[in-house]
């Protein structure tokens, strides 16, 4: 059995979103079984199945923050602090 990752897309402009995973023996059977596990209740209008073997997994080290570069974090805290200071010195 192989593991397949399921991506569903609702009607409209929403992108495909990861919905979960399941097991099947091959691609064709995966396509038969996927509906009952993930799309029986109209959860998506389109579905992609990707065999987990085919996913490219990125080294978590490459994703880690550079500790000395907080300005790359665009979470707004620096701007908020600056504006608060301007408003109420």
């Amino acid at each position, binding site marked *: 059995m192989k593991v397949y990752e399921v991506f569903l897309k609702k009607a409209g402009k929403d992108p495909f979103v990861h919905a979960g995973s399941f*097991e099947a023996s091959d691609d*064709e*059977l995966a396509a*038969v*079984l996927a509906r*009952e*596990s993930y799309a*029986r209740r109209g959860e998506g209008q389109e579905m992609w199945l990707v065999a987990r073997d085919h996913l490219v997994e990125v080294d978590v080290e490459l994703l880690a923050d550079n500790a000395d570069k907080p300005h790359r974090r665009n979470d707004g805290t620096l701007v908020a602090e600056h504006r608060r200071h301007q408003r109420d010195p």
Partner: protein
Amino acid sequence: MTAAGPVNAVDALVLATADDEMMMGHNWSEWICVAPFLEEDLAVCSIGQDELGHAHALYSLLTDDVDRLALRRSPADYRCSWLCELATPEWEDALARHFLYDMAEELRWLALAEADPDRLGGLAAQARREERYHRTHAVSMVERLADPDAASRTRLVTAIDRLVPLAAAQFEDLPAAYPHYRSTVDSVLDGLGHTVGWPDEPPTDQGRTGARSGHFDELHGRLNAVVDLDPTATW
């Protein structure tokens, strides 16, 4: 529909199909949580749910009291095929029946739609959309598990061979569709290098006339187990 049974040939076909669907729906419900793997468990219990829905829709054409018609008849008043009332504690039997039943069902729905397009055409169209998935599922599983290289092949083809006479008997009330049925089943099995021995004609008195197999009483008892606790209760 009267107390004595269906009033015409179309109603008789509706009742027999409804009884088949009812028993198949129930049979699948008994596999919930015990099918061989999770994804298959979900697939067959939802197929069973579809079948119960079809049974309900067909019974509704015959009566206002669906529960009573579905559950409370005496055994000789049921018209399901013996194939559908067979106990299948082994997975290969359940799967062989799934394949042999759902290949037949398509032809029954076509016959129903043709017999009375006004009353049955819409329902048949909706059911056939769902049945297409049932067939795809059944054929997909048979193609894999009866593949010449599969360890499961012997078990599955032995089960199919054993059930073929019962499968043929489904067509006692629809003999015109029997040759087509044989050819559609054969076309799948040919691809797997397996040949089954069909009876020339559908065997008779294996369900459609009211004769019941030895499996019926236990199945009927399980269907009625809760109602029997208090038959007068309102649900």
